């Protein structure tokens, strides 16, 4: 992680592609664990879903690399929608597509725009899936990440610091889903029996935010 310089003046397409690489690597490595988490309260496919989608997204980006950070995110989001399926495909696809759209045509953006993008993406997820904080979904990692990012930014942290705090918040948020009772997604069918298991989608969300910190040269959340 020492060989990846912090994004200096701003976040560009190369940075987002580095994130995509790191996220894909992390999801590939953690796929079995995510599927394992999706077994007691789901249908045992979250890891293979995410791996399939991100490998396809990386391939799509490599084949025709967009020149803006927003362009890369939109392409990743579209590819997820077209290759993942399940609940996570449209939700993560929307997260990244909305985030990318928020960044518009800019070739380089600062951490504040990244926050706007994340806010737009998370808003899209909430709207599409209808879940709220505490429903034991990916939002329970994404919302704390957004809050932490916003707070760190307001406190004047560097991009790497800002993303590192988002990564720890996401990871804590994911872990904090364990005692929750699911109200959305297929874990909700289990009622009380969903309590005591960490949510797979919150866990993969923490991996994605961790990869963001890692891409910025902060210590990786890849070990979420």
């Amino acid at each position: 992680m020492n060989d990846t310089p912090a994004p200096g003046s701003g976040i560009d397409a190369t940075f987002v592609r580095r994130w995509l690489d790191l996220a894909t690597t992390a999801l590939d490595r953690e796929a079995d664990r995510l599927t394992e988490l999706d077994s007691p309260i789901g249908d045992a496919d979250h890891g293979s879903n995410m791996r399939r989608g991100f490998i396809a997204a990386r391939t799509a980006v490599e084949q025709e690399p967009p020149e803006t950070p927003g362009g890369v995110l939109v392409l990743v989001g579209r590819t997820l929608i077209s290759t993942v399926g399940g609940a996570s495909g449209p939700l993560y696809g929307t997260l990244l597509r909305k985030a990318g759209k928020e960044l518009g045509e800019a070739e380089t953006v600062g951490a504040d725009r990244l926050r706007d993008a994340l806010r737009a993406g998370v808003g899209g997820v909430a709207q599409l899936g209808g879940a709220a904080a505490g429903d034991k979904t990916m939002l329970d990692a994404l919302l704390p990440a957004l809050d932490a990012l916003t707070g760190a930014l307001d406190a004047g942290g560097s991009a790497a610091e800002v993303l590192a705090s988002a990564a720890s918040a996401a990871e804590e948020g994911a872990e904090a889903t364990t005692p929750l009772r699911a109200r959305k997604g297929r874990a909700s069918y289990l009622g009380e029996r969903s309590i005591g298991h960490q949510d797979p989608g919150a866990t993969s969300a923490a991996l994605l935010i961790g990869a963001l910190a890692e891409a910025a040269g902060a210590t990786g959340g890849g070990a979420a």
Partner: protein
Amino acid sequence: MKMLINVAETVVADALRGMAAAHPELTVDVERRVIVRRGAPYEGKVGLVSGGGSGHEPLHGGFVGRGMLDAACPGEVFTSPVPDQMVRAAAAVDSGAGVLFVVKNYTGDVLNFDMAAELAEDEGVQVAKVLVNDDVAVVDSLYTAGRRGTGATLFVEKLAGAAADAGAPLDRVAAVARRVNESSRSFGVALSAVTTPAKGTPTFDLPAGELELGIGIHGEPGRERRAMMTSGEIADVVVDAVVEDLRPDGPVIVLVNGMGATPLLELYGFNAEVHRALTERKVPVARTLVGNYVTSLDMAGCSVTICQVDEELLGLWDAPVSTPALRWGC
């Protein structure tokens, strides 16, 4: 767990190749994962499109043909298909009379079919949707994703398919589909857990002397675990669950459905108990279907779906159907 597969990654593509080889009456696009009834679109006929995760065979691909679906979109195992598949299917079967999407109520299916409907409408296809949500094991409230779509999917596809076959317009076909869904209830029981190709081990532990009540069709545990019961006792629990929720005041069609690994010998024996239980509760049975139709890979267990029918719906049930898995009258 041993499986008759090559590698987990190609399970769905391999199955589609095998369907193509077995069923010349279907057009199977293996790469794009769309199964279309040969000859579609049929002039003036509403197109029926369904789909969902694989692992529930013969649902949906086995129900493509005359009097039922025009196209099916299989996703990965237990993973809803992606919008591209439904958009392509809709384009392939739309004769101009519009397309009905039959969607089982799971977050993933709902989101992906919704996206597909938007995209298909952008391309000029008129799309109606029906959500199947018959599983009474899910307490339908603000605190769940709502009732799952399970066995009633077969009824919706059959009866709406018959209506479309008879030339009904889109709003009419959709109305039939919604009425069938509203008249149907299901409840399932697992005697064993599922092993998905991707995971390779059972999704949950189910000890020898126990069973899961209120399971879905994706290997999820149910709402409750109990000590193993006899087939007669299980029939009482299951029939109580669906009858108390539907409260039918007329004849029903019954689907006694195997989850995949329960022998047909046992399913027929269970059917005897289901009939006994329905009769005791004064529910007249107009038609019965016994077999593995809406399955959950290698799960042992069963589900019961009842659908209250009037003359019209019964006529649609009896109408000709010619698909790989359901065939009569033609």
